[in-house]
């Protein structure tokens, strides 16, 4: 269960969002600048809401009334940022291991490396990787944190078509292989349809609708953006 009720002010932009979703994978969908990433950063603890409550599976990360505001390090979330944010001075292996709890056994590391096909470049530095590889390492690093939930911020943005297909396939595999609550931020309808169970449509910092992915797929907004996204991908 994902519970979001937050109010956030960033300069002129005001975000007021309240939703509850039992979906395992929830997508925050909307145009650029509508407040999706701000919401994700607030969930991660990198932005502080003015008021409200953020909880995942009953575990409160932020609760203004209850005086709860866990620091990012204690939220136990796996965050995949749009710009990946791999540590440039560390090898892929060390990036992957950075957030790993000590209790994680080597098998778990190997499983993630195998799942995301990272074994060939474990010794490389992020600067020596392609865009798709960087995104896969960022996903692996977040997974190895053994998080209670995964936050994905536009995981396919700025990737060329082949890399996009490659990362999307890995994310699909991840959804099948890991029973993790996931919050996905995207403005790409095909990405949302492929990865989410439920979609929160956000417009100008407000929740416009909360619907199942099936309903989203058949809705005009979803279909329209899907056509646009596909045209963009094939163009």
């Amino acid at each position, binding site marked *: 269960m994902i519970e979001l009720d937050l109010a956030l002010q960033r300069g002129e932009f005001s975000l007021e969002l309240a939703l509850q979703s039992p979906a395992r994978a929830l997508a925050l969908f909307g145009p650029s600048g509508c407040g999706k*990433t701000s919401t994700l*950063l607030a969930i*991660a*603890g*990198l*932005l502080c809401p003015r008021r409200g409550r953020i909880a995942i599976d009953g575990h409160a990360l932020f609760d203004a009334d209850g005086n709860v505001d866990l*620091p*990012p*390090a*204690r*939220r*136990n*979330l*796996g*965050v995949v*940022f749009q*710009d990946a*944010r791999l*540590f*440039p*001075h560390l090898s892929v292996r060390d990036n992957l291991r*950075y*957030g790993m*709890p000590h209790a994680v056994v080597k098998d778990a590391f190997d499983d993630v490396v195998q799942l995301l096909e990272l074994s060939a470049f474990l010794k490389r530095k992020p600067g020596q990787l392609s865009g798709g590889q960087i995104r896969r390492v960022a996903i692996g*690093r*977040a997974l190895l*944190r053994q998080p209670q939930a995964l936050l994905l911020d536009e995981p396919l943005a700025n990737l060329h078509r082949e890399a996009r297909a490659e990362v999307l396939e890995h994310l699909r595999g991840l959804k099948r292989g890991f029973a993790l609550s996931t919050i996905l931020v995207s403005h790409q309808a095909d990405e949302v349809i492929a990865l989410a169970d439920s979609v929160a449509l956000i417009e100008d910092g407000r929740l416009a609708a909360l619907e199942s992915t099936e309903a989203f797929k058949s809705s005009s907004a979803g279909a329209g953006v899907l056509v646009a996204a596909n045209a963009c991908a094939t163009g």
Partner: protein
Amino acid sequence: MHLLTPAETVALALSFKVSLVGVACSLPVAVGCAWLLARTRFFGKPVFEGLLLLPLILPPVVTGYVLLIVFGHHGAIGRLLDEAGLSIAFRWTGAALAAAVMAFPLLVVALRNAFESVDRKLENAAATLGAGAWRVFFGITLPLSARGLVAGLALAFARAFGEFGATITFVSSIPGQTRTLPIALYELISTPGGESGALRLTLVAVVIAVIASLIAALMLLRGGTREAEA
């Protein structure tokens, strides 16, 4: 044939020792102060910054005299150090303290710039991966500031190595104890027939300064600006 006389060699070795110890002692404090300036906001920050930079602006003789007042045999701290058998006045450790104080602002400025050039988004990413403030600092911020740190160390070492005014005021000129290379050079210049020795020490000082500034320039060439959290 030796390039330097035994007395000049002693002065050179002492300068290295004093500068290295001085910069090493300055470093942890400078790292802390630079981090505060780069990463925090607090009331009176400009005043704090101004105070840190004071040794860069004050006449070195003034700095040396303040050190003498505080750490000399009759000074508030100096008396305590004397009682503990750790006297630093007129000893090489005093010269190291003078070097540390004079090199400190350069270290702070270089480190502050280095910390500010580290992408805070990487620090945030590390925090979301469970890293506490110390682990973020030592695992991400400091390694990514390495070039600025090396540049700062090179400049601070050069400044400490060339330190004269504060040192001679605080610890005088005692051969083997406090007569560092610049003080030995000054003594040679003031002594009839000391011209060739002065020239030799001048050459050594120039070579060391050039090496230090080359290291700093090379390290600072690859700078860059980073964004804050979007």
